[in-house]
């Protein structure tokens, strides 16, 4: 009994800790006076209004940004999943020259301070004429999310017994067929995590999008939201409302696949 009370108590404390800042954003989005700070602890006051949410949809290009973001994030996810699932399979199942080095190189790509890569990114993208095109974004996004995805997928494949493929190969399946027909379906939980991670990393990415996209018609959500922000003259209400709406699809995605998420990470990570 004491244990249970203690558990409830701590969970509630942490729930407050994790939710309060979000409620704060909510209260900013409900305020009419476009101020970021308030002096009271109340979230909803007598002056609360939904005006910012209405304005967001009616008076800004929010839906356009949403569409662009969905397009970019979906394509990035597809490409990311396709590449991560194949290369991780090779890394997990076969021993070849430089395998360990490649695994480490993947990790190493995460180690260089990302901000210093912006300038050369710009130079190379403009040489390749990929500025202001979604192609530039796809390429960078799918390859920046890949290292984590490959590690994750590889760890999952490691847990699948080899006997499964051996049986298939004996039955006359080609290697590709074995991978495609036997291994991939078994790995669906890990594929879901990979997909989720790729989606999340391109959905809310700002820095690279700001380098690549200049045409407001191509803006993704983070770019659009940041355009409400100007030094010393931010549209806080719109900004906060937008930030909340941006997180809704992510939460829906989470809820709908969290069953896979849990079991997926389980099996995938057991052997690390």
């Amino acid at each position, binding site marked *: 009994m004491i244990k249970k009370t203690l558990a*409830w108590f701590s969970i509630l404390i942490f729930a407050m800790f*994790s939710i309060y800042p979000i409620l704060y954003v909510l209260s900013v989005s409900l305020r009419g006076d476009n101020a970021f700070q308030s002096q009271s602890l109340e979230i909803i006051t007598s002056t609360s209004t939904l005006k910012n949410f209405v304005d967001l949809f009616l008076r800004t290009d929010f839906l356009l940004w949403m569409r662009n973001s969905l397009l970019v994030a979906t394509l990035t996810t597809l490409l990311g999943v396709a590449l991560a699932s194949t290369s991780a399979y090779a890394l997990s199942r*076969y021993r070849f020259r430089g395998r360990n080095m490649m695994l480490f190189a993947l990790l190493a790509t995460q180690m260089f301070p990302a901000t210093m890569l912006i300038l050369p990114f710009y130079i190379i993208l403009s040489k390749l004429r990929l500025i202001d095109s979604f192609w530039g974004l796809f390429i960078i996004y799918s*390859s920046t999310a*890949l290292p984590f995805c490959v590690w994750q997928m590889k760890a999952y494949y490691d847990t699948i017994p080899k006997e499964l493929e051996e049986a298939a190969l004996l039955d006359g399946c080609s290697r590709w067929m074995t991978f495609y027909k036997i291994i991939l379906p078994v790995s669906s939980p890990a594929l879901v995590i990979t997909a989720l991670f790729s989606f999340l990393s391109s959905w809310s990415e700002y820095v690279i999008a700001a380098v690549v996209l200049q045409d407001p018609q191509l803006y993704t959500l983070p770019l659009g939201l940041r355009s409400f922000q100007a030094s010393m003259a931010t549209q806080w209400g719109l900004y906060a409302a937008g930030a909340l709406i941006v997180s809704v699809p992510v939460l829906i995605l989470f809820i709908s696949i969290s069953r896979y998420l849990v079991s997926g990470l389980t099996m995938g990570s*057991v052997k690390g």
Partner: protein
Amino acid sequence: MKFVKVLFFSLLFLSPLAKAAKPLRIQLWHQMIYGHRVVLSEALRQFEKENPGVTVQETYRETEELRSSYQAAAMGGSGPELVFGPSDQIGPFATMNIIRPLDEVLEEKYFEQFDPLAIPLYHDKHYMIGGAVGNHLMLIYNKKLLAKPPQNSDEMIALGKEHTRDLNGDGKIDRYGLVFNYTEPFFFAPFIPAFGEAFMTDDAKPNLDTPALRKTFEFILRLRDKEKIIPKECDYETANALFKQGKAAMLINGDWSWGDYKDAGMDFGIARIPLISETGKWPSPLVGTAGYSLNVNMTSSAHLEAALKLLRYLTSERVQLMFMERVGVLPSNLSLRDNPIVKNNPLLKVSAEIMEVGTPMPVVPEVRGVWDSLRIQYQKLLANSLTPAQAAEGVQKLAESQISDMNEVLQPDASAFVIKGLVLVLVILLAWVSKGSLLSFVQGFKGPQKFVYYMMLPAFVGIFAVIIYPFFYNIAISFSNFSLRTFQDWSIVGLHHYANALTDPKFYALFGKTIAWTVVNVFFHVTLGVFLAVVINQVMPAKGFWRTLFIIPWAVPQYITALTWRGMFNQEYGPINQFLQQFLHLSPVQWLSQPFTAFTACIITNVWLGFPFMMIVALGGLQSIPHSLYEAAYLDKANAWQRFRHITLPLLMPVMIPAALLGSIWTFNNLNIVWLVSNAGEPGDQTHILVSYVYKAAFNLYRYGYAAAVSVLIFLILVLWSLGSLRSQYRKETR
């Protein structure tokens, strides 16, 4: 077949038309605030209508970002034809040779129609034409509380005291006499000349170790500590919110903020920042302009022609009038000053009077060093770790060293040849050594393992195609003299930056701090994540609900939650201190103005952001632990702690360690949180970790070469760290 024919002919028919219809696209990058953007867009659409065949694409970027992305774009040989920004960007841009002197393309007479403030000279050339003048600070007062503005500083203090009040008797001040973003040098700079002399000499030298600066420091401290008419912690957003909610009688802010207060339905008046009583001098706000500059890179002469046409259009009387009517800015065109709309606009009239005591905004690149060192020392003063005299002395020293760092042009020395030679030798050596493996790699595509190669290759080609050029580019510039003065023509100079970084005690201090940052963060991420996962998994009903609840911090864009946390840490108005006071009866903590607590604030924010990820990983790990183990433990009468210690923990380790390793790399390089929560290293540059220090060196002080060298060091540190931990992990597993 018929269809193809039709298609063919229609294409044939359409193709000349398509060619004629393809418009010339001119790009304009700007940093205009929301209200101004609307007017700009309207003016541009009008321009397109009048000039068929030309389209203008405007792109908004926040001021600092506009600067860095324009630099990058121009470096890459492209960028927008026109760039609009504050006048202080022309110094750096002109030094980098990425904007063009307008005297080359416009006749001399064209400049005569403008207020000299709108066409600042840099090295005797015009690089910018401003559409309006202003951007100056003034005293804005709430007419409901104050009938008329104070005449001098004594009166201001008296009025301030009268209005600084605890209205509801809870022991807390509800209304302040005066609020402003006083932690930012731009906002206290007007006072410096009022106490004596200017903070920069005419030849762009810092003039900071002066009695004037000491007295200004003392004045601000007096307002805060003795007269207590300004809040203890007050950044721009706090000041703005207090004023808008009627909780401040007076505010110091710029002309850009009027629109916002009008929209909020406030009745406000404007006046000069009051005369300083003890010297009888007026504080002198910096008056500047924001204007249009021309890129040096043009795709064709037709683009140049169109861009010039657009420049003339945007600075014309017609467009200025539009801006003036709609957003109330003072036009730069002198002939418009007599326009009835200007004359009858009370705000503009007073604003022009305020401007009379202003100082033109310096445009030299050196001013950045002055601002930065002022900010650092001043914030240390506000945190009471320096006296006014020490701070003033420090500012001068710091400014001088920053300016010389910024202007440094390294000459190649002997080590440059050594480096070049070494690289050559290394490449040859590597090629020789790896000849065998390369050959077998290529043969792998034909060999029995070719399936593996084809499976693996696309991802690796993708990753390394994207990363390899930027990576080697950075290594190259880390050996180079790439900085403000050598932006377009840098060359390899040797190991100078590495030697510089590795002999600097500051580097080691930052390194230590970064380790502390990483260890504390990852520790809390993992322990909190595991704790919550265990509790949710074993005790709580409705697991799905709790899981989702704790994931929310991860789903909301980081950018806004980080700023939210900053707001929550405000000393007087932040909910954290209110909570500490109301429920725990503790005294308020000065979170953001003391280095240690500011760093703690960053850590708290990052812990908040990071634990959901670890919780998910841990929840996953828990699912894989067979239930039978717990049942056996139960039969053996093991208590909860024993079960956790001997079953859960060991079986969770293999899952958590790789996640923690990746987490530590991400945390080590996490720029955003430190940058946003501590507002770029405040107070006084004392909350930096290595990666934010790198960012500042590169993007604020233009020391790209140095920043790249430190980045390479960061990379090496992380490589060693992860190699070490992977090896020990491997050893454990094989034992």
